[in-house]
């Protein structure tokens, strides 16, 4: 079906696949990628696609079932409608009902959001990825099926839609074609938040139908509550990791730094995304070194969940979201710390600082702070000494959506990076107008089937182009060091995978990493060369 012909009501059309992405028609990339050709997406073997509905766009991340009988399908549709009814009542959705209703009620179909959406733009404007499309499907279902007399008047009230299993199954997939970056909400003249609508659709499917990406639920929050971390790191494994990190830090810097655990009544409980322990230990080491040299009274927690700031519930449902954030609050309260500092993890910033505020009540309402603010104080007030000449190479910065657009934390990290990196330059656009890394809302950890290819070529493509555009042609020469600072574990994982997919290490030698690594690299108390350019990239 040609893209122009596709209308909202086609969501329920009987066809094997509603749209498909033609990788040869995706927008072109800048220098030195003008001739880059993406391979076609890998085929999903029959055994993997069996009993799954991938009829939206043939991309498989969230596993949506394809029941064999019509009766089963009808049952699922009824369950969906019942869930939707609950989603629209304050008793069942006290958390997000108000912003959800404002977003459902106030859209004027101006389509300003479409031009703001990297998914829509970089797919070559595939109609179903328009932020409005998904929201409109939901609005029409509500109007037609949950409004008195809705079915009779549907044709005249713009609620033209067929409610069948394909409609519902495709809506579930559509909720996982949005990184929840909320760039559409930033630009909407009416304040409509299509990202929130996508998230609430995910919630409905998870809580009412058990349809959810396994990386977020079974291998995410469930695993976190059972083992202590979404990575499966138990408190015992944690100690082994930290023993190694202390050794490693000594080898790299010559300094003996002891990482404090479970220190009662410390000023600061520092909480990291546990993915860093396994994939980017240098980030953990850098934090410890900065905090120790600055003489802060700080601690880490070795209690279950207390050492993993992750809360994937933010991306897909409220029950697990609450369970995890309550655990975080409990750990902080038990330790008696004065404040919690959230390290370089974007979604943890939002979950612990903003959303958690509605659950961390009374004596549990311990102040929480972004590490960007803590670091700004240390650097700008010269509590640690810096020699910016050590960072005299081109540096640009990616803004994690949850820290910048969602939280409004824009300038602290900029004041730091401008002070320590003489060749810092912004991406265009940046700050609250940034583009998502393309791995937001948990996409970066979805590594199966053909989804990674979609993630690299559609939402990730925008970020990759932005990274390339931040450097001159001369700077992009592989002989020159350059650095993309991405102060968020999830974004870092996505940028690592992007650089790998686009073969960017060999072609351009772009290094990526967090903010604290740059700080340590320039600290006069530490010997030169903290950032390793060649071994781990």
């Amino acid at each position: 079906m040609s893209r122009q012909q596709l209308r909202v009501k086609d969501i329920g059309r009987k066809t094997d696949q509603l749209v498909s992405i033609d990788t040869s028609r995706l927008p072109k990339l800048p220098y030195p990628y003008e001739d880059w050709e993406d391979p076609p997406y890998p085929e999903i073997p029959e055994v993997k696609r069996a009993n799954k509905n991938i009829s939206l766009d043939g991309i498989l991340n969230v596993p949506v079932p394809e029941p064999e009988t019509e009766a089963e399908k009808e049952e699922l549709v009824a369950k969906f409608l019942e869930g939707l009814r609950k989603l629209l009542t304050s008793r069942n959705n006290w958390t997000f009902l108000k912003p959800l209703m404002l977003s459902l009620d106030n859209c004027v179909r101006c389509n300003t959001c479409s031009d703001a959406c990297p998914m829509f733009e970089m797919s070559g404007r595939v109609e179903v990825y328009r932020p409005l499309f998904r929201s409109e499907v939901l609005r029409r279902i509500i109007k037609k099926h949950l409004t008195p007399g809705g079915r009779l008047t549907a044709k005249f009230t713009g609620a033209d839609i067929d409610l069948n299993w394909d409609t519902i199954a495709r809506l579930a997939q559509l909720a996982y074609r949005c990184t929840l970056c909320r760039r559409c909400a930033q630009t909407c003249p009416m304040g409509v938040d299509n990202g929130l609508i996508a998230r609430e659709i995910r919630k409905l499917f998870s809580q009412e139908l058990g349809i959810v990406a396994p990386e977020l639920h079974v291998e995410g929050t469930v695993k976190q509550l059972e083992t202590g971390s979404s990575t499966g790191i138990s408190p015992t494994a944690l100690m082994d990791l930290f023993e190694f990190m202390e050794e490693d830090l000594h080898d790299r810097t010559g300094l003996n730094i002891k990482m404090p655990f479970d220190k009662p009544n410390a000023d600061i409980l520092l909480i990291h995304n546990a993915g860093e322990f396994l994939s980017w230990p240098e980030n953990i080491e850098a934090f410890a070194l900065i905090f120790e040299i600055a003489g802060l009274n700080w601690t880490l927690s070795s209690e279950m969940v207390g050492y993993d700031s992750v809360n994937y519930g933010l991306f897909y449902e409220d029950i697990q979201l609450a369970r995890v954030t309550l655990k975080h609050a409990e750990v902080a309260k038990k330790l008696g710390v004065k404040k919690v500092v959230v390290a370089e993890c974007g979604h943890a910033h939002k979950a612990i600082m903003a959303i958690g505020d509605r659950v961390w009540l009374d004596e549990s309402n311990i102040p929480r702070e972004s590490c960007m603010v803590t670091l700004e104080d240390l650097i700008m007030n010269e509590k640690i000494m810096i020699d910016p000449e050590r960072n005299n190479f081109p540096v640009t910065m990616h803004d994690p959506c949850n820290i910048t657009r969602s939280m409004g934390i824009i300038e602290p990290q900029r004041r730091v990076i401008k002070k320590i990196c003489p060749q810092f330059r912004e991406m265009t656009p940046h700050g609250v107008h940034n583009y998502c890394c393309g791995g937001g809302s948990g996409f970066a950890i979805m590594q199966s089937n053909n989804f990674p290819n979609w993630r690299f070529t559609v939402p990730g493509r925008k970020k990759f182009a932005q990274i390339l555009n931040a450097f001159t042609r001369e700077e992009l020469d592989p002989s020159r060091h350059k650095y993309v600072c991405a102060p968020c574990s999830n974004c870092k994982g996505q940028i690592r995978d992007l650089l790998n997919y686009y073969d960017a290490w060999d072609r351009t030698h772009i290094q990526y990493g967090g903010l604290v690594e740059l700080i340590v690299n320039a600290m006069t108390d530490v010997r030169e060369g903290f950032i390793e350019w060649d071994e781990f990239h």
Partner: protein
Amino acid sequence: MPTFTHGDVSIEVDEDGFMEDPELWNDEIAKALATTEGVDELTEEHWKLVHYLRDYYLKFGIAPMIRKLCKETGFPLKKVYELFPSGPAKGACKVAGLSKPTGCV
């Protein structure tokens, strides 16, 4: 759930070919899984890496961090990629019968 069969070996694997039940692992399964990673023969160096991963996993329930793996086996990361072209996590861990890495790693 997909079943992976090679020679006499028949095991259940996840979406990405990782063992569903890592406890069933043995040398024959390692050899069979290696073929899915483009490794036709496991040399002494392959085994050194596989056994290191396996031992760490049995002790701690997770894969070790890559930096530690390199340090303790003495293999630079480049060498790990030479041994297992799809890398330490996707390649070597799969052959060592570990489950798929989870979380923001």
